[in-house]
């Protein structure tokens, strides 16, 4: 028995020290969080197709001060699932009424979070409208709209504190964004947002919807919910929408959510019509934000 304890106790002690994103066993204050810092690039083609690259980055383990104490490589494949076969429960829908020049790019970019204790998916839809506007010289513009939705469910002691999608036009220099929307405030049970293209005659309304447990807050910004330089540099061209637990930045281990939580946002970008092909091939950065911690002092 003593021999067993001699082996087991050091192992437990080692695990308690090395396990990331946990609540401090000596107090209820969470002193480790995991933050997903990964993004992918999707390019669009004039004939209406998406080409999504892998999602690459890290899961950063940060302490209560937000300082990175560990980096775990993260990679996920964007799934080229045909429309209608996604696992995402929060579709972006377009209500087309035959508008000329409207394109819905297929397939939507779907990428799954498939960690041991955190499961979820994020979906990014892209649409464009040719000849959206014309200036006094008869020069036209094209607009690109992205509807991004998604969220994460946690289990086995893992609790979510941030969850939601982000998308940005892949240009950190020239502001192209003309509109963005997300839900703000207390989380309703289900809701939707829409932005752009819903002109009174022959309009197209792109609506992103989501259902989730009504708890805490929905937020959005042009910058990510936590430090993540790769997406933050696109703040002039970005929309980030997320669910956030009200305990942040100092959570206790009974805080966070073990339910499905996420958000939905839409962004609208405008380009000279002559620049359309270049804009589509420059592409859009997409990301899923997820911050979670382990509420179990012995690990999750």
């Amino acid at each position, binding site marked *: 028995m003593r021999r067993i304890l001699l082996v087991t106790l050091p192992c437990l002690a080692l695990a308690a020290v090395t396990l990331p994103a946990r609540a401090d066993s000596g107090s209820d204050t969470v002193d480790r969080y995991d933050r997903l810092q990964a993004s992918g690039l999707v390019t669009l083609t004039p004939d209406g197709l998406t080409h999504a690259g892998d999602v690459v980055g890290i899961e950063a383990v940060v302490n209560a001060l937000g300082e990175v104490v560990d980096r775990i490589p993260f990679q996920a494949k964007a799934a080229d699932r045909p429309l209608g076969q996604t696992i995402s429960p929060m579709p972006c829908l377009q209500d087309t009424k035959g508008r000329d020049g409207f394109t819905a790019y297929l397939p939507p970019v779907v990428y799954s979070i498939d960690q041991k204790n955190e499961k979820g998916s994020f979906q990014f839809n892209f649409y464009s409208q*040719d000849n959206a506007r*014309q200036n006094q010289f008869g020069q*036209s513009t094209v607009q690109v709209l992205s509807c991004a939705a998604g969220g994460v469910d946690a289990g086995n002691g893992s609790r979510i504190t941030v969850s939601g999608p982000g998308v940005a036009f892949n240009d950190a220099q020239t502001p192209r964004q003309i509109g963005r929307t997300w839900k703000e405030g207390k989380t309703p049970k289900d809701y939707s947002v829409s932005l752009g*293209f819903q002109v009174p005659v*022959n309009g197209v309304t792109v609506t992103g919807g989501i259902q989730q447990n009504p708890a805490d807050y929905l937020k959005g910004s042009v910058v990510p919910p936590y430090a993540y330089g790769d997406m933050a540099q696109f703040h002039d061209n970005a929309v980030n929408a997320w669910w956030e637990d009200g305990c942040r930045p100092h959570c206790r281990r009974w805080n966070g959510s073990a339910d499905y939580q996420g958000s939905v946002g839409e962004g609208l970008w405008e380009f000279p*019509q002559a620049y359309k092909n270049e804009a589509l091939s420059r592409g859009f950065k997409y990301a899923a934000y997820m911050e979670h911690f382990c509420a179990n002092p012995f690990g999750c």
Partner: protein
Amino acid sequence: MALTGRVAAVTRALVLVAATALTFAGCSRTHRAASPPATVRPGDLVAVEGPSPAGRFVAKIGADDLNSDLYDVVLPSQFRRLTNGARVSTVGGCPGKIVVAAAQREVGYLDTLQEFKGGRLVPLDKPGPEHAFGPDLTPDCRLLFEQTHGEASNITNEVKTYDPETGTTTVVASGPTVSGGSWGPDGQVLVLRREPSGPRLDVVRPGGASQELDPQVADVGDTQWGKAGWIAMAVFAAKEQPPTATLFMDPTSGQRSTLDGWLPLAWSPAGDQLLVRDAAKGTTLAVVETTDLGKTRNVGVSTVGTVWDAVWLPA
């Protein structure tokens, strides 16, 4: 005050120098008038000369061509904002009516024909809140506008007119190279086509007869036909570059004249004066008389941004 007086005096002197230089430059059937000499660049002038032009001015003004608002302008320098965040693209008007193509959030950020009524933009009653561009109105409020159909690789543009008296919408011109239109002084429609070989202007008369004009430059835009007969248009010396000059053409006599450094905004109701803005910053406003298309007279300065488009209505 004293400083302002000194600046005005210096400016008047410089403008006098410019005018004298132009007088000695002479004129010909086809001439290029170097309106502002090197020492008096458009955009640098802050003083105005002479009486303000008579009439009412409504303009699209803002720092960004695609993010501008509607202003009521009293020359030389009163700019009263009429809209906020309206994303006005183009403006047209007739006595008692201002019609814009604007793309604010309420209309899904797409150009939609709207009327400025009761202090705000409202969807156009007739022919309706169309997704359309470039409204232009005759003095008796007949509407001309443009629409596009088809996908990017197969776009057909249409120039349409709408007669509020009969409720009739007529397609005046259509085709993949049609790029804009404006009313002529006697019911004609001026249609701009951007052909691979360069821009062409079609004068479409009410009976349907058409006359083609060749501006003989890389590109033109913002074509406007004054009541006195002159057509003014912005000239692009090179494609994909900002416009740099105003070209005047008389479709009857074939006369041409170029005004460097200035872009057209609006003809006066009588068609004898053209309101122009400097091409560099777009904040200095001047008028050009049809009696001397090479001479500008400063009439105002915008302190609220570039003046992109305007209508000039009777007082």
